Each structure stands twice: as structure tokens, then as C-alpha cells.
């Protein structure tokens, strides 16, 4: 497995090379370099995955955790900051996801970014991102994860701000970085607490959880010692880390950066803001999952309810957006929230068909995988559309199925997948999530089912809005929309994966044949878990999804949309609120600009200039003024001098007598 180091090194070198020498390279060369490197690491990842999963399982039935590399990068007192590569089922799965999507995006970008200024820079940043994201998933310890976590943050910043001459892109990139940075603060503090009390940052949990009994941090000495250290330290640390994850994964209320991040080039949105980076939060929780379940079971509802609310909120906002990328962005938020919820509802590690409390873990990872594929496909499709009509707004679209047939087909497949229609990949993963939720609590299960229905509705609203509906003929006759092979090829590949996985897992899930399923590779305790659908859940969600699609078809398919207009007229305010994303951005704007800038920073700056600096200036001014005021003392009259002389003597005499 030694070659895995290349998976990190190659994109890094490619980044350096393209970044430094890009100026002297042609677009084509630099694109080719980037893509070739990506192809290489994709192959390497597949090899890794193949080797890993075909190797023998351990005696306890789980896959071995391999650490081909691990070296101390920075010694931190008793602790060590290590860098290395850790291979276990989820990191290997993530390698596949990341390299696949990234490779697709690299190919796609040839067409999408053709002729753009800064083409080399774009590929350099993509390489940087890929490297960072891969480093994040193969992290051997929490600090390494944090390091790459920050790096993906900055790559995201750079890529969102790729069109740096556009004010909106600049603002969006800034916002994305700062919001996630703010969340990362929680992550960092969590790491610090974790590292201090466990004596290690490593993911090798079994050896490191030697929580000293009786230590009572955060509580001044002398207060009730009954609160044992282990009681709440670890949950606190985990929750703080979850804040970091929530920021990256755009959980409410830290989601505000993601919709704006759509200002970046669309392939970037597909790669970073749909398939890979935004699921880092989910991945982090999954990474720490044994800790959560074992030590912080009581605190897991935080994850659940944050997830549930976010899923609902994002879905409802998505119903009202008119910018297609925004719709997809909110859909992403909502889907990630599904994954979070799935992790949150777990209550045990042991898997097996009698242990429903552990399905969530597997389901979440499964959904992560399937979602990455179909959402990337959707975004890339959206990219084709935008490329064709030069607009993000649905108004500019409509009826595009004539012009963009391949895009249309793949988009439809992906929509079906996300809506949870059987034989498409989304169905299998979402079904498992709902099963897990149901097992935890029927309330959560039903809510999630309802949100799944909303998903189907808004996705088909989007689909009809783009490919059917009212056509903007004026615009389309001006430049006839068309599609390019280099851009459609990735779409096709991704939808093949979606469909292939969908068919395979659906058939396997319904027990039509016995074979490996996703759960065989990844499950909470690593055991071979064969997915079997719960018929009631499966049928319920399928029916609801079909109903939603039908509803959307009824409302949005036609050339004219009387129902939609009527609905809009019935509740214009609701639409407006949803359209404005329930004014969350304004709230943030208010807090940052009005409160922090105007009432904290500015007064502090004023205070510094006038009070603190003023004090020192006052000293100088005071000396000068004093000097001018006592100049009469030196009056030039010799008799006065003598008088002072005499008084001086008298005072001195009095002083010592």
C-alpha cells in the first residue's frame, strides 16, 4: 500500500507546477497535466480500493485498518502532530468518491472553462483541492484532519473567488471562508480538549482513551467532584468538533455560505460544494462515530435535530429559488442533513439485522457515496445548461430538452435518483436512512419521509423549469443552446454509475440475489452487513416520492403554469420569505456589520487612537505645556534668582532638621 503516498503527492506536485509555471504554459498543456495527474491518482485509488477490499478480513470480521505512513510532523510537547495515511473502509470509499468526481470535473472543465482567463490557475487550484481533500480523508489523527480541513477551506475560497473581478464572487468566497473558519474555531477547541484529556490526537481510539479519573477541568477546584471527567469532557469536545463539521457541511445556522458559494465556476460547485468538501462534516462525525456512540450517546440528539431542522429548512427554501444552482445548493444542504441525521440516530455499534441502531452509519456513508455521484451529475448538468444559455435563472430556460438531449437524460436520471425512485441509487441509500430513523423514533422517520417528498417536489420543479415549461424563445433563437461532448461524457459516466449502483443495490436490497452490498464494505463495526429493505418503509417512501413528482409535473410541466401562479398569489409572503431564505443572510449581515464592526471594532479602534494613544500624546503635550507654563520661573531677573536660591536653602534646611 506504499503507493498511496502518491495519491497525495502527485496532486500537490501538480499544484506547485501549475501554480509556478502555469504562466508559461498553454491552456491545453496545463489542463492536460492536471487531468493526467488526476487520472493517475484515480487509478491508484481504485487499485487501493481493490486491494483493500479484496484483502482478507480480520479475525473479528472487519477490514484491517492500515497505516502505511505515519510520521511526526510537529512535536507538541507530550503530544505529536502526525501526518500519515490511514486506510479503513470509509477512507477508501472517500478516495473513490473524491477521485472519481474530481476526475470527471477535470475532464468536464476542459469544455466548461475553455478560453477563460486563468485556466492554469483553475487547474492548479483543483489539484490543490483534490490533494487537501484526499489528505483530509486519509488523516491518521484529528489534527491532520484539521490541517487539511483548513486547506480545503482555502481551496474552496480560491475557487469560489475564481472570477475575482466580480464583486459577488469575491463576497461569496470571503463569506464561505469566514463562516467555516468561525465554525472551525469550535473544531479547534474541541481538538485541544480532546488532545489534552486523551493524550493523543490519533484516531486509534482504543489505546488512547485513558481519561484520568477524577480530573475536573472547566470546574474550579473545590466544586462538586462528583462530575467525573469522562462524564462530559468528551461530549463537549465532540460537540465542539461537530460545530466545525456543521460549518463545513452547511448545517443550519452555519449554512449561509453555501448558496453564495455558487458564484464559483459550476464544475467547482459540483466537486467541492456538492460531492466532496461539504460532506467533510459528515465524514468527520463518521470518523469519530465510535466515540459518539460510546461516550456521548446522550448528546447525539444535537446532531439529529440540527440535521432534521436543516433538512427541512433547506428543502423549503429550495422550493422557492429561481437560480438553478441555488436550488441545487439547498438541495445539497438538505441531503447532507439527511446524512447527519442518519449518523445521529445510531445508538449502537454492533451491526447485524437485529441491531437496527447501527444502520444509520452505513446508510449515511452510502448516501454520501450515491449523493456525490448524482449531485455531481446534476451540477455538471446545470453547468452545461448555464454554459448553453449563459444564465443561472430559470426564466432564461424552459424547453431545453430539444437542445440538450444528453444533459436532459442524465439530469432526469439524477433527479429520479435524488427523489428516491427504485432502481436509482438514491433510493437505496435514502431508504436505509429512513429505516434507521424509523428505528430510532417514528417521529423522526416520518419527518424525514416528508422531507424526502419535498425533495422530489423541488427537484422536479427544477427539472420541469429547465427542460419543459415556458421556453424563453427570444433568448434561445439568439444563440442556439448546444452541448459539447467533453462536457457530456462525464455526465454520462456519472449517470451510469447512478443507475448501475441503483439497479444493483435495489435488486440486492429486495433480496433478488445474494451478493455484496454497500454494507458489506462499510458498516458501523466493520462486519459484513447485507442490506435488506424494510418493505413498508420502501413502499411508503416510493409512493410518496412518486406522488410528489406527479404533483410537480401537474404544476410545472405545462407551457403555462396556472397552479403555480395561484399558489404564489395565495401566499406571496411565504414565497418571498422562502425566496429570501428566511432572511438568514440579513441576520448575519446585521450581526457582523452592525454589531461587530460598528459596535465592537470601530469603538476599539477609536479607543486605541484616542484613549491609549491619547494618553501617550497627552504625556508629550503635558510636558510641553508645563514647559511653557513654568517659563516665568526663569524670569531673567537676577534678584529673583537669588530669592529662589535662598528659598531653596531654607527648604533644604527644613527638610533635614
Amino acid at each position: 500500500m506504499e503507493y498511496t503516498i502518491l495519491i497525495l503527492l502527485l496532486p500537490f506536485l501538480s499544484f506547485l507546477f501549475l501554480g509556478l509555471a502555469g504562466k508559461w504554459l498553454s491552456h491545453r498543456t496545463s489542463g492536460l497535466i492536471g487531468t493526467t495527474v488526476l487520472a493517475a491518482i484515480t487509478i491508484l485509488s481504485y487499485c487501493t480500493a481493490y486491494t483493500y477490499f479484496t484483502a482478507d478480513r480480520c479475525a473479528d470480521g472487519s477490514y484491517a485498518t492500515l497505516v502505511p505512513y505515519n510520521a511526526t510532523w510537529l512535536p507538541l510537547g507530550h503530544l505529536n502532530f502526525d501526518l500519515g495515511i490511514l486506510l479503513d473502509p470509509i477512507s477508501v470509499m472517500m478516495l473513490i468518491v473524491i477521485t472519481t468526481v474530481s476526475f470527471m470535473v477535470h475532464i468536464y472543465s476542459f469544455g466548461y472553462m475553455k478560453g477563460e482567463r486563468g485556466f492554469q490557475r483553475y487547474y492548479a487550484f483543483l489539484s490543490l483541492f483534490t490533494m487537501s481533500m484526499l489528505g483530509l480523508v486519509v488523516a491518521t489523527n484529528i489534527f491532520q484532519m484539521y490541517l487539511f480541513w483548513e486547506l480545503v477551506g482555502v481551496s474552496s475560497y480560491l475557487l469560489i473567488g475564481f472570477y475575482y473581478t466580480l464583486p459577488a464572487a469575491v463576497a461569496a468566497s470571503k463569506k464561505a471562508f469566514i463562516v467555516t473558519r468561525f465554525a472551525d474555531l469550535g473544531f479547534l477547541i474541541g481538538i485541544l480538549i480532546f488532545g489534552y484529556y486523551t493524550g493523543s490526537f490519533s484516531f486509534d481510539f482504543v489505546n488512547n482513551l485513558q481519561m484520568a479519573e477524577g480530573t475536573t477541568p472547566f470546574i474550579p477546584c473545590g466544586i462538586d467532584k462528583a462530575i467525573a471527567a469522562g462524564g462530559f469532557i468528551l461530549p463537549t469536545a465532540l460537540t465542539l468538533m461537530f460545530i466545525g463539521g456543521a460549518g463545513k457541511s452547511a448545517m443550519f445556522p452555519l449554512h449561509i455560505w453555501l448558496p453564495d458559494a455558487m458564484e464559483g465556476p459550476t464544475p467547482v460547485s459540483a466537486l467541492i460544494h456538492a460531492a466532496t468538501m461539504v460532506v467533510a462534516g459528515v465524514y468527520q462525525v463518521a470518523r469519530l462515530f465510535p466515540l459518539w456512540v460510546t461516550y456521548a450517546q446522550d448528546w447525539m440528539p444535537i446532531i439529529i435535530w440540527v440535521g432534521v431542522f436543516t433538512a427541512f429548512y433547506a428543502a423549503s427554501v429550495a422550493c422557492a429559488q429561481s437560480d438553478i444552482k441555488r436550488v441545487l445548493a439547498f438541495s445539497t444542504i438538505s441531503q447532507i442533513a439527511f446524512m447527519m441525521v442518519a449518523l445521529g440516530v445510531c445508538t449502537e455499534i454492533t451491526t447485524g439485522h437485529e441491531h437496527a441502531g447501527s444502520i444509520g452509519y452505513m446508510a449515511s456513508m452510502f448516501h454520501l457515496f450515491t449523493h456525490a455521484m448524482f449531485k455531481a451529475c446534476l451540477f455538471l448538468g446545470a453547468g452545461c445548461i448555464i454554459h448553453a444559455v449563459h444564465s443561472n435563472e430559470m426564466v432564461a430556460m424552459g424547453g431545453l430538452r430539444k437542445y440538450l438531449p444528453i444533459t436532459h437524460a442524465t439530469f432526469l436520471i439524477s433527479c429520479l435518483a435524488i427523489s428516491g425512485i427504485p432502481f436509482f441509487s438514491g433510493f437505496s441509500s435514502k431508504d436505509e436512512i429512513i429505516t434507521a430513523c424509523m428505528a430510532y423514533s417514528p417521529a423522526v422517520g416520518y419527518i424525514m419521509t416528508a422531507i424526502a417528498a419535498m425533495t422530489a417536489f423541488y427537484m422536479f420543479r427544477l427539472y420541469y423549469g429547465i427542460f419543459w415549461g415556458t421556453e424563453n424563445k427570444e433568448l434561445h433563437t439568439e444563440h442556439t443552446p448546444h452541448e459539447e461532448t467533453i462536457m457530456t461524457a462525464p455526465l454520462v459516466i456519472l449517470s451510469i454509475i447512478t443507475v448501475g449502483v441503483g439497479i444493483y443495490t435495489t435488486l440486492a436490497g429486495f433480496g433478488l440475489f445474494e451478493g455484496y452490498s454497500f454494507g458489506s464494505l462499510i458498516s458501523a463495526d466493520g462486519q459484513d452487513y447485507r442490506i435488506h429493505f424494510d418493505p413498508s418503509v420502501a413502499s411508503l417512501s416510493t409512493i410518496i416520492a412518486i406522488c410528489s413528482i406527479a404533483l410537480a409535473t401537474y404544476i410545472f410541466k405545462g407551457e403555462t403554469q396556472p397552479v403555480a401562479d395561484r399558489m404564489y398569489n395565495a401566499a406571496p409572503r411565504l414565497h418571498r420569505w422562502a425566496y429570501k431564505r428566511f432572511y438568514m443572510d440579513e441576520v448575519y449581515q446585521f450581526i457582523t456589520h452592525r454589531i461587530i464592526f460598528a459596535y465592537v471594532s470601530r469603538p476599539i479602534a477609536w479607543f486605541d487612537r484616542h484613549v491609549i494613544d491619547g494618553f501617550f500624546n497627552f504625556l508629550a503635550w503635558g510636558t510641553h505645556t508645563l514647559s511653557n507654563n513654568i517659563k516665568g520661573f526663569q524670569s531673567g531677573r537676577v534678584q529673583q534668582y537669588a530669592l529662589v536660591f535662598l528659598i531653596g536653602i531654607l527648604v533644604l534646611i527644613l527638610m533635614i532638621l
Partner: protein
Amino acid sequence: MDRLNDILNIVLGIHVDISWFLILSALMMFIGIYGFLTRRNTLAILISVELMLNAADINFAAFNRLLFPNGQEGYIFTLFSIAISAAETAIAIAVMINIYRNLKNNFVGNLDKLKW
């Protein structure tokens, strides 16, 4: 001095001891200082200074005569001091003449060109 003392003792019935000289010299000293601080004419100031110096001289002489009659230190000191004060006064007057030549008067109040 002895004779003076005797006369005073006989005529006025008072005994002149060291304190008389000290009081005299202190008075002279303070008169001199007062004169120095208040006179407007520089020559008058010089005269006041002479009073101050002479007050000290009286002290020396009196101490030597009445307290330490075995030595001559005080007398010698007085002699030197008189000589020195003469020298000082001489040069002071030279300066005053110079000022008078420039200003046509020698009021001390006019010496205030250099100040602050």
C-alpha cells in the same frame, strides 16, 4: 576687643559674649540678603553683598577670638576673604561699568534680555 568689652561691661552693665557677635553677623547677613533682593541699583546690590561677606568675616574673627583663641585660622580666613571680596567687587564693578556703557544706566531691572 577686650577693652571694648570691659567698657561695655562697666558702663552698661552688660557682658558681651559670643552671641552678640553672632547676632550682629546674622543681622548683617540678613540685611545684606534683603538689600540684595530689593535694591534696584546694581551698585547697591554690590554693597549688600559686601555686608553678607563681612558678616561671615565677623563670624570668623569672633569665633577665633572668643572660642578658639589658640589658633589664627579665623583671622587668616578673614583676611583672605576680605581680599577675595575686594577682587570680586572689582570685577563686578568692571562688569557694571561695561553695562553702564551699553545701557547708560545700571538698574538691575534692565538686565532681563536673557530669560525664559
